[in-house]
């Protein structure tokens, strides 16, 4: 069993082992929608919500699969739950705020293939977290994802005004910034221990 305190779990998932900058999960939306701070914050919110729901479901599924002794179904059932949660969020946002729906565009359905979400579900199972711990872990991961997305979006907005060599425009430059950010986040090591 796990003896970490809930605060330590949160800090660990959010800063020390930031999902984007330390585990490289969710890089696709990280590179794709990090152009503007506004879109990035909405994307972060949507991802956090899906993460929370799927983490709770994953806990239930894992318990069920252990009970019927069928661990090989784990991956398949996790991905189905995530896909249906994303569908639900998509319908919800479309109904509540059509403007937000349009601004997120293709990246909303693509949350399904966001590795960070499946990553949360798999890691919490591997670490043997209980229900409350899983929820806190998912929350921390979601907050960490949003922080990383916002940081890089802010930097990229400013970089639009900078003169950079032509060959480094686009993905290469974003990756360099991400690398430097990742170095910065290493400073948090040992914080949650």
């Amino acid at each position, binding site marked *: 069993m796990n003896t970490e305190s809930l605060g330590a779990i949160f800090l660990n998932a959010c800063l020390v082992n930031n999902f984007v*900058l*330390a*585990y*490289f*999960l*969710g*890089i*696709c939306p990280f*590179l794709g929608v990090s152009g503007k701070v506004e879109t990035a914050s909405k994307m972060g919110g949507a991802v956090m919500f899906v993460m929370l729901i799927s983490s709770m479901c994953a806990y239930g599924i894992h318990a069920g699969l252990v009970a019927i002794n069928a661990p*090989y179904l784990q*991956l*398949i059932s996790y*991905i*189905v739950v995530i*896909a249906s949660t994303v569908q639900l969020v998509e319908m919800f946002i479309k109904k509540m705020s059509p403007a937000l729906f349009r601004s997120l565009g293709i990246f909303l*359905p*693509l949350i*399904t*293939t*966001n*590795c960070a*979400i*499946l*990553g949360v579900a*798999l*890691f919490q199972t*591997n670490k043997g977290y209980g229900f409350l711990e899983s929820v806190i872990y998912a929350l921390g991961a979601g907050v960490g994802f949003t922080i990383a997305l916002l940081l890089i979006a802010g930097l990229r907005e400013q970089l639009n005004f900078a003169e950079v060599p*032509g*060959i*480094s425009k686009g*993905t*290469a*430059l974003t*990756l*360099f910034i*991400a*690398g*430097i950010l*990742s*170095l910065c986040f*290493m400073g948090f090591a040992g914080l949650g221990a």
Partner: protein
Amino acid sequence: MSKENSGSGQKAVTTDEFIKGLWRDNPVFVQVLGMCPVLAVSNTAENALAMGLATAFVLLMSNILVSLLRNFVPKQVRIASYILIIATFVTVTDYAIQAISVELYKSLGAFISLIVVNCLILSRAEAFASKNTLWKSILDALGMGVGFTFALFCLGAVREILGNGSIFNLPIFPEGFQNWIVMILPAGGFFTLAAWLLIINVIQTRKVKT
């Protein structure tokens, strides 16, 4: 994402489907797809190669199945069924690697399961295999798989040589070489990939000029 126009492709030489994945449409360097495993497990050449081969296997099998079933799967539920097909093969790979080498399984960790959400595989299923014949889909998967493995190996080799002073666990530098620890750390993954992209940008701008 992908540039091929599948409708008018009858005349195209079939070998082209294979070759395009290696360089012109390389999944990592040109399309920038499937970044998560690329950065996460490329800290040694061995891990990178294993991950590349596992992904290539899943890509090949799912492309075959998707292509065979392309006339039977209703359009509305196609993405969900592709994901299920992929998840099945990933589970197979997961257990296979566990049986072959427990050590390798431990060092790759949860990233084998995360092949499911590798955008590369889903995008090949959706953009290519669902519209093309079995033979073409196999060639496409092989090309993309080899291209992906090649790119992963490029990253892994650079990171292991600089960060650990070795390649495939064989030391290559004389005594006293100071390892660049940063290359093994997460930040090194970002830097190495960015550097490769820079080199490729330089090559391509040269080509356009001449």
